[in-house]
C-alpha cells in the first residue's frame, strides 16, 4: 500500500465515527427527559382536524419509552 493510499484510509474511519456519533446523538436527543411531553400535542394533530366530527380519542396505555 502506498503512503498516499494509507493516508486516504483514515477517511472511512472518520466517516464511520461521524455517522455513528450522529445517530447516537440523535437518539439521545430525541429520547431526552421530558421529550415525550413535548411531542404529545403534535401526535394529536390528526384528531384535531374537525373537532365537532371526531369521536373521543381512546386512552392509550402510557408505556411509550
Amino acid at each position, binding site marked *: 500500500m502506498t503512503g498516499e493510499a494509507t493516508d486516504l484510509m483514515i477517511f472511512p474511519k472518520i466517516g464511520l465515527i461521524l455517522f455513528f456519533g450522529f445517530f447516537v446523538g*440523535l437518539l439521545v436527543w430525541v*429520547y431526552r427527559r421530558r421529550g*415525550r411531553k413535548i411531542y404529545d400535542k*403534535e401526535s394529536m394533530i*390528526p*384528531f384535531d382536524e374537525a373537532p365537532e366530527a371526531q369521536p373521543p*380519542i381512546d386512552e392509550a396505555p402510557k*408505556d411509550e419509552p
Partner: protein
Amino acid sequence: MSQPEQNTGLERLTYNDKVVRQFFWATVVWGFVGMLVGILIASELANWRVNMGIPYITFGRIRPLHTNGVIFGFACNAFFTAAYYSTQRLVKARLYSDVLSQIHFWGWQAIIVCAALTFPQGLTFGKEYGELEWPIKLAITVIWVVFAVNYFGTLLRRREKHIYVSIWFYSASIITVAALHIVESFFIPVSFLKSYSMFSGTQDALVQWWYGHNAVAFILTTPFLGMMYYFIPKAVNRPVYSYRLSIVHFWSLIFVYIWAGPHHLHYTALPGWAQSLGMVFSIMLWMPSWGGMINGLLTLRGAWDKVRKDHVLKFLVTAVTFYGMATFEGPLMAIKSVNAISHYTDWTIGHVHSGTLGWVGFMTFGALYWLAPKLYGVKLYSDKMATTHFWLGTVGIVVYIVSMWIAGITQALMLQAVTPEGKLLYPDFVQTVAAIEPYYYMRLFGGLLYFSGVCLAVVNFWKTMKSAPTPVDETVLVPVRFVPSRLTDDLEEATRQKDMTGVVNKLHHILESKPMVLTVLALLTISVGSLVELVPTFYIRDNVPLIASVKPYTPLELEGRDIYIREGCYLCHSQMVRPFKDEYLRYGPPSRPGESVYDHPFQWGSKRTGPDLARVGGKYPDLWHYRHMRNPRDISSKSIMPVFKWLLTDKLDTSLTKAKIEAMRTLGVPYSKDDVDSADVRRDRQAAEVAAVLKDQGNVPETVKDKEIVALIAYLQRLGTDIKKEAPQ
C-alpha cells in the same frame, strides 16, 4: 373557499375532496389494469404460448407496462389520494389551487395512458422503471412540478403551525423523486420517440440503480410511511406510539436509504468501493425500517382486538407486517454472499412483491377502505367483501413469494453446481428453467388470488359510490389563518432559552413548523449519499479504465441493439459475467467496466430468465440465431422464450441510422465524421454479408438482408468479441 364565522375566531372551510375522489378512482382503475397485466406476464412466463406471437403483448414489451402501471398508476395515484386528503386536514387548509389540482390529475392520467400506448409498440428508453420515452419524461417533470407547487402552496396557507410527521414523509418524497427523475432522465433525443441515455456502461448502471432503488424508497416507501402515520392512528383512534421515534425514523431513513442502490450491482463491473457502500448502508437500513415498523404496530397497543373486526385495520396492520418482512429481507439480500445466490433469480422478484403486494398494496387498500365511506358519506357497501378481499390477498401474497423463493434458490443452486471434476452439473441453462417452471404456475395462482381480491374491491367501491347521494366536499370550522413567524425570529427566541437543553428542545420544533426549510434539509440529507457515490464514478478515470480493443458498434449493430432494447431482451438476459466459477465455466471471463463504455444505455440487466449474453458473440452460427428467433423450441425444446417471428418479416427502419450515430458521437462515442456520413452504406454492406452467411448456412432467401433479424444477429454476434481481441497481458 373559507368564510369567517361572526365573533368566533373561526372560519368555515370546504376541503377539495373532488380531486381526492378522482385520484381514489384512478388508483382503483390503474391498480386493476396494472395487476391484470401482471397476471398476463406471469402467464407468459409459465407458458410461452400465451405470448401468442403477437409483438404488442410479448413479455419484453409489456413487462414495463406492468411495472410502470403499478408504480406510476397505482402507487403514485394512491400517494396523491392520501396526500391530498390527509394534508388538507392536517394543516386545516383547502388545496392551494383547484386548477392545479385538476391539471395534476388529468396530466398524470394522460402520462399513464401514453405509457400504455407506447410500451406495447416497443417505444422504450431501455432503463428499468424509467422506460418512458423523452416526451413523456418531460411531461412527468411538468406535472410533478404542478403537484409540488400545489402541495407546498397548501402548506404555506396552513392554519396549523406544526407540520405533522406524515407531511415530512410526503414532502421528502416529492423533492427526492424530482431529483431522481431528473438525473435518471438525462437523454439525447434522436427523434420524437427515440432517445439515448447520456450515461453509459458502469456510470449508467450506477445512475440507474441509484434511481431504481430510490424509486422503491421514495415512491413505494416514504409516501406509504406518511400514510401509515396518518391512517393507522385514525383507524385505531389513538395517537402514534412514539412521535419521538418518528423523528429518528424519518431522518435516518431518508439519509441511509439513498446510499443503498449499488447493492443491485454486486459482483458486477461496478467499482468495489461502491458495492461495499451499498451493502453497508443496506444493512444499516434495518434500523430505521424496523423502527418505523415498530412505531406503526405499537400504535395498536391495547387495541389489537379491533383488528379482528375491522377490515381497514386488517389491511393496515398486515401492510406494516409485510413492510417489516420486506425490509428485513432486503438488507439480507444486499449482503454480498447472499446476493451471490439471490441476484438475477426469482428470489428478487419474490422480495419485490412482498413489498409491493403486501406493503404498498395493503396500505393502499386499507386507506381506500377507510376513505370510501368518508368521501361518499355512506357506509361501505359490503364489509364481508372487504374481509374476503383481505384473506384472498394475504394467501395470494404468501403463495406468490414462497413460490419465488423456491424458484430463485433452486435455480441459483443448480446454476452454481459443479461436479468433483470441476465441470458444470447442469451445463444447459434451460435445465434450470425447466426445474422451476412449476413454481411459475404457483406464482400465477398466487397472483390470481390477489387479483381476485382486487376485483372484489373494485365492485365494493363501485357499489359504495352508487349507493351514495351526490358527494359533498367536507366543510369544517377552522381557526383563521395564522401568519408564520420568520425563521430568524424563531431562532432568536430559541437562543433566549435559559439553558442549552431548552435551546436544543426548540430547534427541531422550529424545523417542524417550517415546511420549506424542512424540505430543503431533506434534500440536503439525500444529496450526501447521492454525491458521494455518483461523483467519483464520473470524475475518477480509474473507476472505468478503457480497453483498447473495445470499439464502437457498427451502424447495423447499433440498429440491432435498438431492436434488442425495443423487445425488452434485457429484462430476461443479462450482459454481465460475475467472477464466479460457474459463470466462468458457463460464459467466460468476468465482465470489466471498460467493456460497456459505449453502451448508452447499459445492458447489464437485473434478471436471468434466460442465460447471460455478454459473451454470446461467435458462440453460435448466424443461422442458429435466425432459427432461435423464429421459434426458440427449434433450438431448445424446453425454452420458455417467446417467438419473435416478426423480426424475420419486418423491414428494418433505416431512417434514423445516421442520426443515431451522430447522437452517439455527441455523447462521446469515438465515431468520426466519416463514420456518420458513411453509416448507411456500411449498414447495408454488413446486412448483405449477414444475409449471405444465412443463405450459405440454411438457404435463407437473400431478401432477408433488409429485415430486422439481420441487424439483431449482427449485434448479438458482436457481443463479447472485442474483449477476445485484447492483447494478452
